């Protein structure tokens, strides 16, 4: 309560249930400005639901989610979209658009229905976003003809073009090879540190979480087990409680690297 409206995102007892079944929460959480938060947890822990709650895609069934002190329910969808960009994990298998067209879609929250065409500032934002992810050369390419890594980068570019303060990414590195994982991780880190934007990711990759995040939120059965800096969160005891599998720390320090123990 001390920092008040300065906290960009605050969840107060926020919970979401579907069909009478509690999926996530109640959760209390404050995400600081410029922070990078990684949500980890087993399948079905409610990571995606938590992200959708945070991005304002679903309304909490109890409690409240607020942006700088204003509850989401008092904001329009467009107002939320100007502040929060979301990159979902599940997307249509076929998208009949070029790279530039797809990234331009990110400008929607800034466009008026009376606008006949995207304006110069829109194209400028698209160009900048594509340059950031290093895909300026693929502007005219059909999205369907991109590799998995390029695709993910284009969706992130679309979110960057949205010029939101908070970027929410669901499983940004799943299905990517190590070099693309590295690129995405560097992209997120640059965006987070240089532009001082806030980032929330959900991931199964514990080392990715440890490398990129300021805090790691361990989610299990919809409840927060811990929300701490990687050095404290990446403890074998906590991870074992979280995943019900034995872990060992193979490298300590500020950003510990962990590994599954097969014979534990």
């Amino acid at each position: 309560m001390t920092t008040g409206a300065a906290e960009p995102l605050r969840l107060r007892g926020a919970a979401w249930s579907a069909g009478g079944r509690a999926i996530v929460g109640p959760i209390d959480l404050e995400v600081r400005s410029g922070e990078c938060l990684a949500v980890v947890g087993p399948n079905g822990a409610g990571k995606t639901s938590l992200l959708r709650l945070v991005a304002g895609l679903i309304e909490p069934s109890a409690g409240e989610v607020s942006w700088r002190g204003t509850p989401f329910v008092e904001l329009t969808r467009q107002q939320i979209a100007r502040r929060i960009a979301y990159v979902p994990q599940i997307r249509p298998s076929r998208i009949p658009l070029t790279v530039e067209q797809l990234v331009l879609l990110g400008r929607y929250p800034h466009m008026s229905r009376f606008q006949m065409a995207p304006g110069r500032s829109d194209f400028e934002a698209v160009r900048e976003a594509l340059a950031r992810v290093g895909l300026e050369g693929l502007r005219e390419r059909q999205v369907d003809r991109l590799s998995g890594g390029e695709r993910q980068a284009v969706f992130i570019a679309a979110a960057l073009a949205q010029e939101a303060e908070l970027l929410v990414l669901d499983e940004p590195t799943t299905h990517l090879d190590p070099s693309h994982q590295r690129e995405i991780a560097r992209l997120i880190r640059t965006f987070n540190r240089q532009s001082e934007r806030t980032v929330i990711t959900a991931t199964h990759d514990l080392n990715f979480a440890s490398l990129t995040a300021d805090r790691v939120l361990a989610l299990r059965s919809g409840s927060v087990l811990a929300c701490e800096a990687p050095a404290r969160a990446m403890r074998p005891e906590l991870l074992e409680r979280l995943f019900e599998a034995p872990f060992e720390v193979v490298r300590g320090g500020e950003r510990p690297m962990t590994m599954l123990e097969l014979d534990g």
Partner: protein
Amino acid sequence: MRSPRAWVAGAAALWLAALVVIPFLGAEVIYPSELLAGDAAISSVFWKLRLPRVLLGLLAGGALAVAGSSLQTLFRNPLAEPYTLGVASGAALGAVAAQQLAPPSAELAIPVVALAAFLGAGSVTAVLLGLARSRFGFETATLLLAGIAITLSCSAVILLLQYLADFTRTFRMVRWMMGGLAVVGYREVLWIAPWALAGSATLFGMRWSLNQLLAGEELALSRGVDLKRLRFWVLGITSVMVGSLVAVTGPIGFVGLIVPHILRRLLGHDHVHLIPAALLAGGAFLAFSDLAARVVIAPAELPVGILTALVGGPFFLWILIADRGGSGRP
């Protein structure tokens, strides 16, 4: 690929060509010199029969193509259109029922038939929406099967009503069900124009939101698209357009399938270009199809609905096979 704007201009040129050229053509060709000579019979054919018929074709075809384009994007399905989804059948059932319920001597006014057609179309879209929101989702096969089931059910009820009707009425209904532009004077044109144009303009107003659907509903939602409202309005507007149209022309199939499909290949999926191009090219397509229907078995005429269905059926199959059931691409 030429620029999308060039294709829209091309569609406009085609539209103008249809408007200017087709009234002169038919089983009997009218030469401009004859028209200028001031023969009363010829100018009557030109101004009172052919011109309104071309205008109706331009409006109806445009409305069908715009409705088809919007439904395809909304349902993320390249095969969706008023006819294949059963919306046109629902409208037809409404119109037939209204005529059947009226006293035998009465000729119902267009707005009354149209209101009944709209109620029919609206009920079908409500059923589709209900199905899509249930656990079946917007899955291609389910949606098309639902469309077929709805069409079959409506046809059965229409047949029943026709069976119960007296002979002259039955004949009129059967002809009307074939879908055609033959009935027309300016009254019909003036009736359809505001619905077709206002409907298209409103859907064009939703172009940015419709574009968002191309990248999936989750992203659209996250960018601030009010999906519930968008669905409601797209389905409501297309129902009004189809209802007002079907009341006059009967159900005309596949215009809303063929034209948007070709346009998407030529100028892409951006609704900023797609919707105006559909309005223009759809109109030109139906007007030229009607010209073909008027001359192909001259001196007799074919209802244009039969012609579009003859072309559209195989076209539908071709998309189904080439697209492997759509897999979610509009």
